[in-house]
C-alpha cells in the first residue's frame, strides 16, 4: 500500500512536471512567434503587370483593382508560383484558383486568403499588412 501510494504520488508529480514543460513550451513558442513574426512588408509595385509572384504573396491587377493574395494554397500551404491560362495553379496537388483567389478546382476548397494591402509612394510600392 505504502509503495503503491508512493508510486502514484511520483506519477502525479512527474505528470505535473511534463504538463508544466508542455505549458512552458507552448507559451514560449507562441510568444516567440508573436515577437518575431513579420507584421508588414513593402514590395515593389507594378500596376501594369496582371500577376506578380513575390514569395508569400501574389499581386493581381485586374480592371484597375489591385488584390494581394496569399500565395499559399489553402489545401496544404504549398506556394503557388505560376499561372496557366489565367489560373493560379498549385504545383503540389494541382488545385486551381482564379485571379480573385476563388477555387476553381480541388483538392483545395477554400479560396486564397486576401491580404490587406495599400499602395504607397505614388504607386511605386505596395505595403502588405500581415
Amino acid at each position, binding site marked *: 500500500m505504502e509503495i503503491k501510494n508512493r508510486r502514484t504520488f511520483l506519477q502525479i508529480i512527474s505528470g505535473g512536471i511534463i504538463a508544466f514543460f508542455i505549458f512552458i*513550451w*507552448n507559451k514560449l*513558442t507562441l510568444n516567440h512567434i508573436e515577437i518575431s513574426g513579420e507584421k508588414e512588408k513593402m514590395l515593389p509595385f507594378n500596376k*501594369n503587370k496582371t500577376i506578380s509572384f513575390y514569395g508569400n504573396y501574389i499581386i493581381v491587377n485586374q480592371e484597375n483593382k489591385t488584390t494581394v493574395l496569399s500565395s499559399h494554397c489553402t489545401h496544404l*500551404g504549398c506556394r503557388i508560383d*505560376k499561372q496557366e491560362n489565367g489560373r493560379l495553379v498549385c504545383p*503540389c*496537388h494541382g488545385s486551381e484558383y482564379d485571379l480573385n483567389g476563388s477555387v476553381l478546382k480541388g483538392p483545395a476548397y477554400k479560396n486564397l486568403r486576401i491580404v490587406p494591402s495599400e499602395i504607397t509612394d505614388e504607386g511605386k510600392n505596395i505595403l502588405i499588412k500581415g
Partner: protein
Amino acid sequence: MAKKKNKTTFGTLALAMFWLVAVSGVFLAIPFDVKSPYLSISNMMVSNPWASLIRNFHYWSSQFFLVFSLIHLYDHFHYKQKVGLKKGMAFRLSLAVLTISLAMISGFLLKGDADSEQARQILKTLSERIPLIGESLAYSLLGDSENYQLIYVHHIATFTIFIAIAMVEHSRKYWPPISDFILSFVGTLGISYLLSAPLHDNLNPAVKGPWYFVGFQEILHWLKHPEWSLLLFLGVLLLIYFVNSAKGKTMFLSKRTLLVFSAFYGILTIIGLFFRGENWKWETPWNNEYSYSVLHNFKTPKVKLSPDYTIREAMSSPVIQGRKESCLACHTNTHGFTDSHSPEAIGCFSCHGGNPFATGKKQSHRNMILIPGNLNTANQSCGTTQCHPEIVERVPTGLMATLSGMISVDRFVFNEQDNPDILTDVHRLGNSAADEHLKNLCVRCHLGNPKTVYGPITETSRGGGCLACHLNYSEEAKNALAQNNGDLINAHPEISLKITNNHCFGCHSRSGRISTSYEGWHETTLLASEMPDSSNYRLIEESRVFIKKKEDVHHQLGLQCIDCHHSYEVMGDGNHYAHQEDQQDVQCSDCHIDGQPKIISAEDLDNESAIIAALRFGNISERKFLVTEKHNRALINTFVENDSIYFLTKNSGKKMTMKSPAAVCTRDNAHSSLSCSSCHTSWAPTCIGCHNSFDENERAYNMIKNQEQKGGWVEYIGEYKAQQPTLGIRKTENKTEVIPVLPGMILTIDKKSFSKNENDADIFHRLYAPAAPHTTSAKGRSCVSCHNDPVALGYGEGELKYEIKNGEGKWLFNAKYENIEDGLPADAWVDFLKTRDGKVSTRSNVFPFSVEQQKNILTVGACLTCHSENSELMKKSLNNFDDLLKNRSSRCVSPDWE
C-alpha cells in the same frame, strides 16, 4: 544469444547503416551551409566531388537504414507468432518509427530545393492544423520560415539522439558482425558513386516529396481536409504498437491491417513516383512530357572524382538563381548574348537543359535541348516560370502557330466543310484529301515546325518557335559555326529583339508574298537558268526568280515589318482567330491620324509593351504612345509630343514625323467606305488557273513529319501577274468597306486521283481572296484605274469600252481570256454587269460588287471617258455627283442600263 550476435539480419544491417549515416553526417556537416543549403549542396556537386560522394553516402545509407528497419520490423512479425514486447518497449518502438520518419524528412528538407520548400510548407500546414498545440508544434519543428536552423538542429541532434538511444538499446543485445559493416559500407559506397542523391534543378515545375512520402502525397491530393491524414499516421503507429504488444485477435488483426495497408501504400507510391507529373497531373510513359515531367526525378549523375574542369574554374563560375551550374565551369567566356540572356544572369541550364550538377561532359549534356526555343520544348526553356511563361502560352494560340485560316480555307475549297471560318490547328490534321494536300504543299510555315540545324534564320528557314524571330548570329558566331572542328565554341548567337525583315522572309515570301512585294519583288515563272543577268532580277532560294517592281513606300523610308506589327499581333494575344485580318491589329489609320489621337501614357502601358519599349528606347517614362483602334494595344514606337505625332523605327531608332491622311481620304461624302489599301496598293501578285491532282508516283514531302514520301498532291500553277488588285466588299458587324481582293483560288481539284472513286467529280472553284498586298504607294490609284477598269470591277482582263450610239451610252466588255468550266473567263470573279453569291471568296464576309454598285461605278466611269480626272468638274463631282448628273449638258450621255 551469443550465436545470434553473429547472424546477419535486416536488423543488424539497419544498425550498421545507422552508424554509417551518423558518421557520414558528421563529415557532411563540414561543407554543408545551413544558411544557404541549396547553394552549398549544388556547390558540393559541382566543385567538390568528395563532398558530393559523402552526401550521396549519407543519403543512400539513410535510405537503406529506413528500408532495412522497416523490413526488420516486418521480419519480427513474420517469424514469431507473437512479438510480446513490454508495453513501454512497444511504445518506444512506435515512437522510434515516428522519429525515424522525422529524421528522414528533415534531411529531405535540408536540401533547400524546390521539392524541399514545398514539402516544408505541407508539413507546416499539417502540423498547424493539429488542435491546441498545432501552431507551437509547427514552429518548434520547422522554425522560422526564412531559415533552416531549427530543422538542422532537429536533424542532427533531436531526432538523431533519440534514434541513437534506441539503437544503443538494441546494440546491447545485438551488435552487428563486422562483416555487416563492411558489406553495408562497400555496397553504399558503390551506389553513392553511381547515383547522386537527388537535388531539384528548381526549374522543372514538377515537385515531389521523398519517395517514401509520395504515396502520402497521393493520398493528400484526394483529401479536401488533409489534416485527417494525420490520423492515418497515428493509426499506423498504433498498429505497430498493437502488433508488438497485443495478443490474440487484436494482434492478428493489426498484423493483417498493417500488411494490407503496406501493399496499398506500395501501389500509391508507384503511382506517385511514376505516373504523376507537373501539378500532380496524371502522366503516362507514352505522353510527350513524360520524361521531362516525371523522370527528371530519377536523372541523377554519377560522381566523377576528377571533373572535366579544374576546381578553380568551378569556383570562378557565377552563382545562378541560387545555385551553381557545372556548365559554366567548362563553357567559360561564352559571349554574344544580350544582358538579360547572359550566362551570368540565367546560366546555360535555363535554356539548354541537360544536367547542371553533373561534372563530366557526357552526363551534363544528356537530355540537353540543343536548339532551345522550338515550341515543342519552349515550356522547358523560354517558358519556365521565371522567364516568359505567358508568352510561351500565348504563341501556340496565334495564327502563325495554328494556321487555322489556311487549313480551314483549304478544307472549304475541297468541299470538306461549309465555311472557311472554323477554328482548327495544324496539330489536328487528319488524312482527308484537303489535309493531305496541306501536308504536301502548305504547312511547312508554322512556328511549331522545329528548327533542327544550327545557323541563322535565312530565306529557307521555316518555323523554329521563338527562334524564328529572335535568333541572330553575329559574324563571329557565324564563322565559329562554319569552322566548327569539335572544339568549344565561345561565340554564341544572340536571342534578342533585333527582329529584321529577314526573319519574316522565309514564310512571308510565299503565298501572299508580302515580304517580297514589300521590298518590291514580284515572282515570275522563269527558271533559275532563264534568269536574265540584271539587277532587276533576284534569285530566291536558288530557284525562284523575282523581277523588280515598285517597293512599298514604308520600305523606301526604312521601315521594317516589326515597325508596324506589335508583339501581340505577332505572338498572338491568347485569342484564337479564324483569319489573319482578325488577328492583325494595326491599321493605317492608327498612325495616319485625322483628328484627335488615342493615346496612353508610359505608366499605363501593359507590362510587356513597357519592357519592350524600355529595352528599345531606354527611358520612356514621360512618353505618350498611340493606341490601336481595333484591339487597344499601345504602339510603343510612336509618341505624341506638342501636338505632333512621331514615329521611331524599332531597330534603328530613326525618328520620323507621322503624316495625316490627305483631304481626299478623309472627306466623308465619296469614297468613305474605301479602305486605305484599296486605293494605295500599287500592285499585287496574282496567279490564275491552278490545277491540283494527286500523283501516286510523285516523290512528295510530308511537311508535318518533315520527311519524303511516295505519292502526294501536285500543284500545276497558272500564270503569275503583278497588277492593281480587284476590289470587293467586306461586310463585318461594324462596317462595310471596299477592300483589295485577288483571284486567290480559281482552281480545279482532281479529287478522284486521291479518293480513287470514279464517281468523284472534279472540284472547280472561282474564289477571290482578300489581300493585304504591302505595296503601299503614297499616291492613291487613279480614278480610271477603278471606274473604267475591268480588273478592278471583277470582270477580269479585257477591253471595257463605253460606246455612244444614237445618243445612247452603253458599256461593253470583251474578255481577254476564254470562258472555262463555269462559263466565265479564266480570270473573272463575276460576269460583266452580273454578280455572284454562294461560294465566291475564301471568306464568308467578302463579296463582289452588286450589280447596282457596278452600275454606280461605271456611271462615274462613263464621265471619265471624256472628263479628265483632274478636271474641275470631276473634282466637284466628288461633292455632289447626283446633282451634276441631273444638270448635265445635252452632250453628256450617261449609260443606259436598260
